C-alpha cells in the first residue's frame, strides 16, 4: 500500500447559519483550497462527500456531483457520497485513503457538509430521528439524547461517575471552543452554567450536548509523491480502524456504558500505526454528549474502565495533562453538522500537527487520533502523524 497524507484542510464557520447547503460547500471548499496553494479544483482526481440528510434538509440528493460542480472539480478516478450518520465524514476519509493507498487515485478532496437548521426548530429534531431505527425506535419519538442518557445513567450507577464530572466535559470543550473562531459557541462556560442549563434527557443537560449546527469542512488527501511535491509539512495517515456492534438499542452491548466496538476500532488503528494510546498527544473524540467523551477515554485506552470521571476532573484530558482531548472544542463546543464533523476533526489535526493552531496549539504535537461514531455501537478511529512512520 502507498503512504497517504493530508495536504490541505479548511472549515466553514459552524453555527445556525444564514446560508444554503451550497453556500456552506463554497465556504469550506474555499478555505481548504486556500490552505494548499498548489492545488486547484481541476487538479483533483477524486471527490468524496460525507453528508447525511440533504434529502430532508435541503431537498437535494445527487450530492457528490452537485458539490463537484459547485467547486469546479472534475473527478476522473473517484466520485462518491458517504452516508454513515454522524460518522459519514470519517467514513469518507477512509474511502479516499483506500483509493489512494491502492493506487486508484492520487489527489482526493473529502468534504463533509450538513445544513440541519430548519425554519421550524422541532422539524430539525424530527429529521434527526432518521438516524435511529424508524419502525422500532424513531416511531416512539427517539433521537440521540435518550440513547446516550442510558449510557450516562449506567456509567453513574456502575462507576460512581457524577453529574459534576459529566459537566466538566462541557466546561472543557466550551472553554476550548472559545479559542476557535469557527466554533458554534465561542463564549466558554462555567461549571455552574453547565449544571444549571436545562435538562434534555436525564442526566444530560443542554451544555453537555452537541447542538444542531450547520457547517462544512474539507481536506485534501494525496499520495506520498504528490504530497511531498505540494508541501513540506504533510500530515500522514498512520492507522485506521472501524467496528460495529449493532444498530438498534436492542442489539448493542447490554451494558450501555461499555462500547466494545470502539475498543476494537481503536486496537485496529493502534496496531496499524504501531503506536499505543499513551503516545497520543491530542485526540478529537466524538463528544456528541459528555458521556460519550468519558467512555471514549476508557475504550481508547487513555485510562482504565470506570476511571474517566476522575480523568477529566484531574485535568488529564486538558492542556498540560496526558492527552489534550478536543482542542477545537469538540462537538459540544463546535456543534455537530453530522457529515462535516469527522472532516472537521481531521482539519483540526492538520493544523495541530503542522503547528498552525494558534491560541489552541497543543505543544509539540506529533501524534493525533480522531474518533467519530454513529451511535454507541459504531465507531471509526484514525491516527495521524507528523512523521510518516
Amino acid at each position, binding site marked *: 500500500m502507498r503512504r497517504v497524507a493530508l495536504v490541505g484542510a479548511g472549515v466553514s464557520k459552524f453555527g445556525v447559519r444564514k446560508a444554503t447547503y451550497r453556500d456552506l460547500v463554497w465556504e469550506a471548499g474555499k478555505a481548504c483550497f486556500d490552505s494548499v496553494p498548489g492545488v486547484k479544483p481541476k487538479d483533483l482526481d477524486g471527490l468524496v462527500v460525507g453528508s447525511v440528510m440533504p434529502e*430532508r434538509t435541503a431537498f437535494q440528493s445527487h450530492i457528490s456531483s452537485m458539490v463537484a460542480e459547485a467547486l469546479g472539480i472534475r473527478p476522473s478516478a473517484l466520485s462518491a457520497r458517504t452516508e454513515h450518520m454522524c460518522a459519514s465524514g470519517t467514513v469518507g476519509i477512509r474511502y479516499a485513503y483506500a483509493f489512494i493507498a491502492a493506487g486508484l487515485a492520487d489527489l482526493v478532496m473529502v468534504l463533509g457538509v450538513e445544513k440541519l437548521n430548519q425554519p421550524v426548530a*422541532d422539524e430539525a429534531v424530527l*429529521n434527526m*430521528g432518521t438516524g435511529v431505527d424508524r419502525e*422500532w425506535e424513531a*416511531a*416512539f419519538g427517539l*433521537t440521540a439524547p435518550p440513547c446516550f442518557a442510558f449510557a450516562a*445513567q449506567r456509567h453513574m450507577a456502575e462507576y460512581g461517575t457524577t453529574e459534576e464530572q459529566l459537566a466538566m466535559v462541557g466546561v472543557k470543550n466550551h472553554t476550548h471552543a472559545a479559542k476557535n473562531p469557527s466554533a458554534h459557541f465561542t463564549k466558554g462556560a462555567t461549571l455552574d452554567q453547565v449544571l444549571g442549563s436545562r435538562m434534555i434527557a436525564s442526566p444530560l443537560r*443542554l451544555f453537555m450536548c452537541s447542538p444542531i449546527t450547520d457547517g462544512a469542512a474539507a481536506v485534501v488527501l494525496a499520495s506520498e509523491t504528490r504530497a511531498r511535491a505540494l508541501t513540506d509539512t504533510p500530515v500522514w495517515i498512520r492507522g485506521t480502524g472501524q467496528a460495529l456492534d449493532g444498530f438498534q438499542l436492542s442489539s448493542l452491548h447490554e451494558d450501555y456504558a461499555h462500547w466494545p466496538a470502539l475498543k476494537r476500532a481503536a486496537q485496529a488503528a493502534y496496531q496499524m500505526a504501531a503506536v499505543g494510546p499513551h503516545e497520543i498527544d491530542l485526540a478529537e473524540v466524538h463528544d456528541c454528549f459528555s458521556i460519550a467523551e468519558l467512555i471514549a477515554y476508557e475504550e481508547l485506552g487513555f485510562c482504565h474502565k470506570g476511571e474517566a470521571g476522575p480523568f477529566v476532573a484531574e485535568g488529564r484530558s486538558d492542556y498540560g495533562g496526558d492527552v489534550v482531548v478536543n482542542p477545537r472544542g469538540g462537538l459540544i463546543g463546535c456543534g455537530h453538522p453530522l457529515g462535516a464533523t469527522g472532516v472537521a476533526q481531521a482539519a483540526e489535526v492538520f493544523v495541530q500537527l503542522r503547528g498552525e493552531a494558534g491560541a489552541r496549539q497543543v505543544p509539540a504535537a506529533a501524534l493525533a487520533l480522531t474518533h467519530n461514531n454513529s451511535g454507541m455501537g459504531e465507531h471509526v478511529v484514525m491516527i495521524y502523524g507528523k512523521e510518516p512512520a
Partner: protein
Amino acid sequence: MTYFRALDPFPLESADHTTLHEFYTRLGAGTLTTTKCRGCGRSAWPPRGFCAECGAAAFDWVDLASEGTVHAFTVQETGLPAGFEAPRVFAIVKVDGHRVFTVLTGAEPAALRVGQRVRLAPLRVADDPKGNPRWLPAFEVV
C-alpha cells in the same frame, strides 16, 4: 402553496405494506409477539424476516410475556421531535430475555426505578393514510 413538512414518523403496519403485519394486528388486540426462526428455533427482538443466526427466511409468530422489567430509562424534558410531547419516558424493558425499546406511558418519572415491573399497554398513534389504526408496543407501570 404554504410551507409544509412531510415525515410520517410511524411504521406502515398493514398487510399492504409489511410482511410483519401480523405483529401489529396482534398488538392491536393486546398481545406482544415476535418472530421465531423455523430454521434454528431462535426468537428475536424486534421481529425479523431474515434470521441473523442461520440465514433462514421462514418464521412463526410466538407470544411474549405481557409483563417485563425496566432495564434502563431516561426522561426527556426538552428537545423532542415535532409531534411528540414532553416529558417523555424512554425505556428499555426486558421481556422474556429480549431488550425492548419503548416508552412508559402514564409513569411518574420521579418514582421510576431500574428493575421495576411494567406491562404492555399498546399505544395507538395516527391512523395510516387509508384510515387503518396503527399501534406501538408501549408499556405502563404495573
